[in-house]
């Protein structure tokens, strides 16, 4: 009886008397007349086979890469050590939740060093690919492999973008024993889960500042591991992260904007009331599906979109950004907008360097270096700086608008909490009075509280 890896799956050959129900995840594949299981069930399949036929031939593992070289394990802060210990005590399968800037990468490197296994680190962006490669190269004594951004080098320790891992996992899924998944909240309900399903890695570590909600959280627990350690910004601010003040600036609408907003709100509210009366517990997705079915619903959705767009960058917000940039001329400021259009508007009007998806990576890097060196005092970004990029120290954030709720808020705030002696960060959150935006801005504050308070 032989177990082999085949395009993201495991096939069991020469097992004539096997009953599939003995082995979790195993099914008979009539197309090739073999038993087959998804690769991520490798551990469970091996355990079951070992119990049944201890002499089976595991031909999956020989396809792995050479042994990893040695590590210079990084020095950890107390909470990082606690996170690592929790992961190890959980059978090296779990997700660690730590705020932005608290050193998640360091925990992952310590985990890789302690496991001493062939490891594949999955990262969402090309910028992070470079960042992780550099951090690993500083402490790992062998060559660091890289998949993505034009590179295709497999080594015992390899970093890959999500996209490259997704495309290549049917071929490389048997080569790593440890998967490290950075920004793990991107997994759980999407297409990319396939990359995790097509890997045999029995040990897995997820890292995130903002775990997803159900049902993605349960799926993530299945594919990577449950949350084994969790701290929020509120737990670390003041010692390991910079202390901060969050100021919600309430702004008005111009008469023309108010008239437009109210008119569109009425169109939306009329359909919404009607819909909610029929189905009070319906989700937003249900609402959007129902709205697409009728002209009134379509009009309501269009009105809702117009209002959302209006609130993202009102006249008052544009003026407030100017005032705040002027007030903090001597500070390092990051301005966050909801979309690129607003970012370019601010960039052009106030001569602030934009960091968007349209700006090439090399130019972004140059701009971030200039910001780090003090040659640029401010940056404006829609989403690119939300997560993943190692943003140089800043002390003021102006959040003009956002569309992605608490997760985005936590990520943005985390960008400026890198601790420095005597630093107290200042975050301005612009919100429009007498609109739903103000309520959401107040709600988002709770996401920054310590974990126990947030849970309450």
């Amino acid at each position, binding site marked *: 009886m032989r177990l082999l890896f085949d395009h*993201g799956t495991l096939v069991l050959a020469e097992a004539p008397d096997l009953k599939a129900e003995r082995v979790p995840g195993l099914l008979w594949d009539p*197309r090739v007349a073999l038993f087959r299981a998804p690769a991520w069930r490798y551990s469970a399949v091996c355990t079951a086979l070992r119990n049944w036929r201890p002499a089976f031939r595991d031909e999956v593992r020989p396809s792995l890469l050479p042994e990893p070289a040695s590590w210079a394990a990084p020095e950890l802060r107390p909470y990082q050590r606690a996170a690592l210990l929790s992961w190890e005590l959980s059978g090296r399968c779990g997700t660690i939740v730590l705020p932005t800037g608290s050193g998640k990468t360091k925990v992952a490197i310590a985990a890789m060093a302690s496991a001493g296994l062939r490891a594949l680190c999955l990262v969402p962006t090309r910028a992070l690919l470079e960042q992780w490669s550099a951090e690993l190269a500083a402490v790992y004594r062998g060559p660091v492999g890289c998949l993505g951004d034009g590179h295709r080098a497999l080594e015992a320790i390899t970093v890959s973008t999500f996209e490259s891992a997704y495309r290549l996992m049917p071929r490389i899924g048997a080569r790593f024993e440890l998967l490290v998944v950075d920004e793990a909240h991107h997994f759980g309900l999407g297409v990319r889960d396939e990359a995790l399903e097509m890997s045999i890695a029995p040990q897995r570590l997820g890292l995130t500042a903002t775990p997803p909600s159900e049902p993605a959280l349960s799926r993530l627990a299945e594919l990577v591991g449950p949350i084994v350690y969790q701290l929020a910004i509120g737990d670390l601010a003041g010692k390991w992260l910079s202390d901060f003040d969050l100021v919600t600036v309430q702004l008005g609408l111009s008469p023309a904007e108010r008239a437009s907003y109210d008119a569109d709100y009425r169109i939306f509210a009329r359909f919404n009331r009607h819909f909610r009366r029929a189905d009070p517990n319906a989700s937003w997705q249900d609402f959007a599906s129902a709205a*697409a079915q009728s002209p009134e619903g379509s009009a309501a959705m269009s009105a809702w979109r117009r209002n959302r767009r209006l609130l993202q960058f009102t006249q008052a917000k544009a003026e407030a950004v100017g005032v705040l940039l002027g007030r903090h001329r001597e500070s390092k400021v990051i301005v966050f907008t909801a979309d690129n259009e607003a970012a370019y508007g601010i960039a052009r009007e106030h*001569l602030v360097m934009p960091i968007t998806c349209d700006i090439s990576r090399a*130019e972004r890097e140059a701009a971030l270096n200039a910001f780090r060196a003090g040659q640029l005092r401010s940056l404006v970004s829609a989403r690119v700086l939300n997560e993943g990029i190692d943003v140089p120290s800043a002390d003021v954030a102006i959040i003009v608008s956002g569309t992605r709720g608490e997760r985005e808020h936590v990520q943005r705030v985390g960008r400026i909490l890198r601790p420095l002696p005597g630093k107290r960060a200042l975050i301005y959150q612009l919100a429009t009075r007498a609109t739903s935006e103000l309520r959401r801005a107040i709600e988002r504050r709770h996401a920054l509280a310590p974990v126990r308070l947030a849970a309450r």
Partner: protein
Amino acid sequence: MLPYALLRVSVHLEGERIVPHYFAPRDEPWLSVLLDEFARFTGRRRAEWVERLREPLPVRAPKAKLRIALSLLEPLCRARPAAAVPPKEARAALFRAASASHAPRGAVLASVAASFAVSPAELDRALFADLAAEQRVVAPPVELSAARLARDANLAIVVSLVRRASHVRITARGKERALIGHARFVGLICRASRLGSASEGIVLDVSGPFALFRHSELYGRALASLIPRLVNCDEFELSATCSLGRTSRLSSLSLRSGDPIGAGEHLLPERRLERKFERDFRRAAPDWELIREPAAISFGETLIFPDYELVHRHQPERRWRLEIVGFWTAEYLLEKLRRLRAAGIDDIVLCVDQRRECAESTLPADQRVVPYETSIDAGAVLAVIAGEPRRD
């Protein structure tokens, strides 16, 4: 590939059957208006075109179909405008100067513009000239008629549907070889059998390894990449089970030659590997004729589809077949060679891409296995078929 929301409104279900809302001749008048309108914006900013689309066309156009047509036109908004200063340099200089100065915007702009020897307005225009919104609309190609746009849109609908499939069954006649070669190349499990006589065509059952457990987007993409090759077959029928909603409920899609689907000519670039091999082999072996896509060989219950037949010009009884193998493992190749030998088929060369192995394994030591990396060595193939010792 259409986004899910757009795909969902581009079909309806009749029981379990998916009925695509194909573009039809009645759509051509508004498509013509759209193309004219698009052409009118030639040379103008992409952002202006996007703004124009917020207003309706002068003729009535179905909303979903309009969005599909626009998604096909979108890649044409690609030209970059000329800028007085390279935008990247303009940004680097202007934003650094603004950070270093307390002067008002106009003064900073004027000072930096002077350093580039351009006017402040030119510098302002150059600032974001390379970004998406500033790209210019390019005139649509002359061959892009309303009818062609409709056929391409239908192809986009079908490709998007098949991408949501786990398994497809294809009956094809004429040019089916490209289909099989491609299925093999993208790692699909493809079982081929003959439909009666050779002239009646073949039946292919194609699915990804993961199809046993659930729909996989990765192999859905691979299945969808068969469609442009399928529509080039002389005759075909396709049936697929697609997961159309967010649930696991499956619906069936049927497609046949004669359906109003574009031929996907632009989607079918000839593979560089074959092109180079053909050129190199003809040069290296003038005594051998290279025949593309020869007849299939019956092999047990299934068929083998060699990519080439190599026939000696002066001794036509000297014939070899050549197959370019997609994904492989050592076990797979050994088993294939063993079965070929058992079936009395010795005159076949297997060209194996060393970068596409599924497992870290060594190639079987068999004269008929020719490894390659970026291109197939015509000399190595010639050495095998001419019975000469291999140089490697």
